[in-house]
């Protein structure tokens, strides 16, 4: 599509423009609250009795998740391109809230597409978006979650392309989106690398992050890719277990190379190439495809992928709240679940950084129901 070429061209220019970079940095510092702490989780470390665990606190950002790093970058690009209308999809609602927030700040019209199922399970974020002045449009097609919301946003974009910019929320879609979103999220890893070198005078042994589309994970990992000794683990949504339709782990059974929504990557699909239904307790991980760079880095053997099931994630959600006084987003709880399982084995000499991609306020009602609190 021609508009993608135009976007790629404009982004390539912006990225080399010192003024643009300064602008992004300014809003990230003054409005969003960067840098975020790299917090040594002392009690979690002690309780698990193994590796030293640090949490990268993206949950402390304005609006409560890493998604705003990308929203700020893209809306500044949209302004540069003279667009007046912003659209976005959202699964967990964090990207929708981040987009509605920056649209409000810059006085732009904003429409958010969200699957009906996600609107129900992340109702708090729906209210937040509306409060921020965005129009939230319910998507009723297919399984009514993130995948359909992306399709609907793409349809809107091709219809209103002349004045609208589509802020995609993860490292998905056609070029230049995956690269651009990764660049805007890479600030997470740049900070974390500097911070760990300051705290520990050495690089970490393991980085771990949950993987929906893959933006918070690639954001943390990117600055460490050349550090050969640093192991990287992406944790996908294992749902009710690895059976067709019950999970969202693209690198497990059912996932294979395909093309979805403008991206050639690993996709959960059947023999005929129809996209399979997915399930995860976490709306942000409940998606059939993964960012293409993840497929590449997995095949290159640089990143390994694991999964946490719904019960694992819910247990970690509660555990993290009780042990550290931090209620993680259900997405981030998948990374914590991996840490819970592996900290001891890694041993006391190991250093782990887990990405606390977001806070769990949005999930409290859903968790209360599931855990009968």
């Amino acid at each position, binding site marked *: 599509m021609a508009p993608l070429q135009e976007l790629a061209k404009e982004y390539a220019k912006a990225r080399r423009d010192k003024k643009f970079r300064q602008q992004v940095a300014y809003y990230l510092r003054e409005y969003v609250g960067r840098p975020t702490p790299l917090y040594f989780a002392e009690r979690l470390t002690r309780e698990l009795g193994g590796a030293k665990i640090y949490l990268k606190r993206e949950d402390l950002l304005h609006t409560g998740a890493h998604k705003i790093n990308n929203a700020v970058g893209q809306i500044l690009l949209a302004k540069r391109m003279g667009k007046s209308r912003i659209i976005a999809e959202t699964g967990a609602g964090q990207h929708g809230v981040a987009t509605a927030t920056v649209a409000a700040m810059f006085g732009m019209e904003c429409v958010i597409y969200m699957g009906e199922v996600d609107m129900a399970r992340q109702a708090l974020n729906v209210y937040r978006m509306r409060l921020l002045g965005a129009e939230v449009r319910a998507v009723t097609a297919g399984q009514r979650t993130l995948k359909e919301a992306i399709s609907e946003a793409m349809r809107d974009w091709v219809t209103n392309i002349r004045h609208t910019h589509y802020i995609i929320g993860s490292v998905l879609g*056609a070029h230049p989106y995956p690269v651009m979103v990764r660049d805007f999220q890479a600030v997470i890893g740049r900070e974390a690398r500097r911070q760990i070198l300051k705290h520990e005078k050495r690089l970490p042994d393991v980085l771990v992050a949950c993987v929906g589309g893959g933006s918070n994970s690639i954001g943390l990992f990117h600055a460490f890719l050349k550090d050969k000794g640093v192991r990287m683990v992406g944790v996908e949504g294992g749902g009710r277990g690895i059976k067709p339709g019950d999970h969202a782990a693209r690198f497990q059974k059912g996932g294979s190379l395909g093309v979805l929504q403008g991206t050639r990557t690993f996709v959960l699909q059947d023999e005929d*190439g129809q996209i399979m239904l997915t399930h995860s307790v976490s709306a942000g991980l409940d998606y059939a495809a993964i960012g293409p760079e993840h497929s590449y880095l997995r095949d290159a053997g640089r990143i390994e992928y694991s999964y946490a099931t719904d019960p694992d994630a819910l247990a970690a959600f509660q555990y993290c709240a009780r042990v550290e006084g931090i209620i993680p987003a259900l997405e981030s709880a998948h990374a914590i679940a991996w840490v819970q399982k592996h900290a001891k084995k890694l041993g006391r000499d190991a250093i782990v950084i887990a990405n606390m991609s977001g806070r769990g306020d949005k999930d409290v009602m859903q968790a209360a129901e599931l855990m009968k609190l």
Partner: protein
Amino acid sequence: MNRIDQKFRALRTLGKKGFVAYIAAGDPNLKQTGALAREFERIGVDVLELGVPFSDPLADGVVNQLAAERALKSGTTLRGVLDLVRNLRRQGCEIPIVFYIYFNLVHRYGVKNFAKEACRAGVDGVLTLDLPPEEGAAFQQTLTKAGVHPIVLIAPTTPTNRIRTLVKQAGGFIYYISREGVTGMQSKVATTIRDRVAVIRQYSKLPVAIGFGISNPKQARAVAMDGDACVVGSAIVNQIAQNGRDAKKVARFVAPLIKEVKR
């Protein structure tokens, strides 16, 4: 010679405009799609576009999304649609057929395998909706080599330099999208059609079919006059949603569209 080329050559000789009908294969089931194809040939549809149902039809509006859902529910697969075309050809049905397809289905089937089987079954053209020319060149070449025309889409927002690249990969006819957006009906036709078609004609000798959102005979005639043929999709799909089990009834909706285009 490819049936599409034959058809447009004949139309040109007669000085007539063409009529392209789009339906979703397998809606409500493949047997009925076969009946519709034969009925369409009888009433003078020039080219039949068969949508191969996909779970995530990104480029389609709600009418075609629902049709794809119905088609998938009836168990329609790419293999099944290929079999349908093979059977139609065996029964002597010679209407030019274009597949309207999302690339994942082709990818999964195997690009070479798909091109070969499409040709063998009697498919004349393939329109891949979600394949940009940068990534599509190899596939389009594979199709051309197999004797199947790659049909390319050009949108109102496609800049001239891109039109030039796109038409180089094209065969059969050029599909010009008469408005920005996805498939679906609309009440007004965009006004810049003629200018853009003129640009396309600078770079390609292929016939130009114009569609997206045509819902009545008057619009059909208007866009056909701006090009070589008009494409009607959602409006027919909507009829099938209501009367899909009665091919004659659907044909009674299509016939006046054809009449107006050929007048």
